[in-house]
């Protein structure tokens, strides 16, 4: 959808909002599902809303609820959120050159709202025209508000659901993550690190307590990802291959 800034809905904020609007359909479903699963793990609607409001990162929230225990393992949850969201480091690095001219508050605030969807649209925009804070926040704020609203609704109504395994909901996390993984797949570049992660995780699941298998699998994948990357210097490239 092409939106002309000078049109009847002129202004960069409206242009950003119109761009992100079709994606809100996915946010509704994804958010309701997350809220339902959070409620099943015993999180209250207020706690679910708080997590959506101050974490605002779908994949890591699903992971957190999946490994949620009562009482929660604070260090493990923080460390897992850090690992799941490491892609933000690369996303922020890609976005940084286009934030020139933004005030410090706009940059630090804008980075808080950086999610896959609005990041992709922001980069797409900046290829054609300078990225204004108005356009960026026009993308980000509807996504943010929609995510909080739908996850909270899911938590309110999901708490009433009895015996989630009857509907296969105990498999829902796995299905969501498999869907995310299908989108992240980059062929051979993904195969080795993900294979190492799967092997380490299955082994860790057998021999380690709790959910430490996730950290083990993540570390194995990072190590293989690093080793599978050829070094830039020509004389070392032969060794790395």
């Amino acid at each position, binding site marked *: 959808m092409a939106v002309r800034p000078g049109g009847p809905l002129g202004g960069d904020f409206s242009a950003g909002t119109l761009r992100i609007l079709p994606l809100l359909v996915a946010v509704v479903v994804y958010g309701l599902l997350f809220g339902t699963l959070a409620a099943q793990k015993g999180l*209250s609607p207020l706690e679910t809303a708080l997590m959506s409001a101050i974490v605002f990162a779908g994949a890591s929230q699903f992971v957190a609820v999946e490994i949620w225990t009562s009482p929660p393992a604070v260090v493990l*949850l*923080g*460390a897992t959120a850090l690992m799941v969201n490491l892609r933000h*480091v690369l996303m922020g690095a890609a976005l940084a050159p286009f934030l020139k001219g933004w005030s410090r508050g706009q940059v630090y605030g804008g980075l808080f709202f950086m999610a896959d969807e609005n990041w992709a649209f922001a980069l797409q925009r900046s290829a054609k025209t300078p990225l204004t804070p108005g356009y960026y926040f026009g993308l980000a704020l509807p996504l943010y508000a929609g995510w909080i609203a739908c996850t909270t609704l899911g938590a309110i109504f999901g708490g009433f659901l009895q015996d989630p395994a009857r509907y296969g909901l105990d498999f829902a996390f796995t299905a969501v993550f498999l869907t995310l993984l299908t989108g992240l797949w980059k062929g051979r570049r993904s195969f080795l690190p993900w294979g190492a992660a799967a092997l380490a995780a299955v082994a860790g699941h057998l021999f380690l307590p709790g959910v430490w298998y996730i950290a083990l699998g993540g570390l194995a994948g990072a190590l293989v990802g690093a080793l599978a990357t050829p070094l830039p210097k020509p004389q070392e490239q032969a060794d790395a291959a």
Partner: protein
Amino acid sequence: MQLDPLVFTAIAAMAVATYATRFFGYWLVRRTTVSGRLAGALEAVPGAVLTAIIAPMAFATGVAESGAALLTVLLASRLSLIPAVAGGCLAVVGLRLLLG
């Protein structure tokens, strides 16, 4: 409506960790360039973590779960999130019934 102090602490820890990842790339690129093996490691981590989470369920729980996982991937590669997740959940219910 309740807010447990330890739950609040856990959510706050997640929030701090997540904001750190959002800020760090911007901070880093203004000082140095992320490349080579560090970039390779960072790029591999999200997929590796997601794989690690699903691996015991997808590969080491049972035939029903592995079959449903395979079907979910097939659906996800052709359709969107909603039919893929719904199909996966239905498949696991059906396969568990069939396989006892």
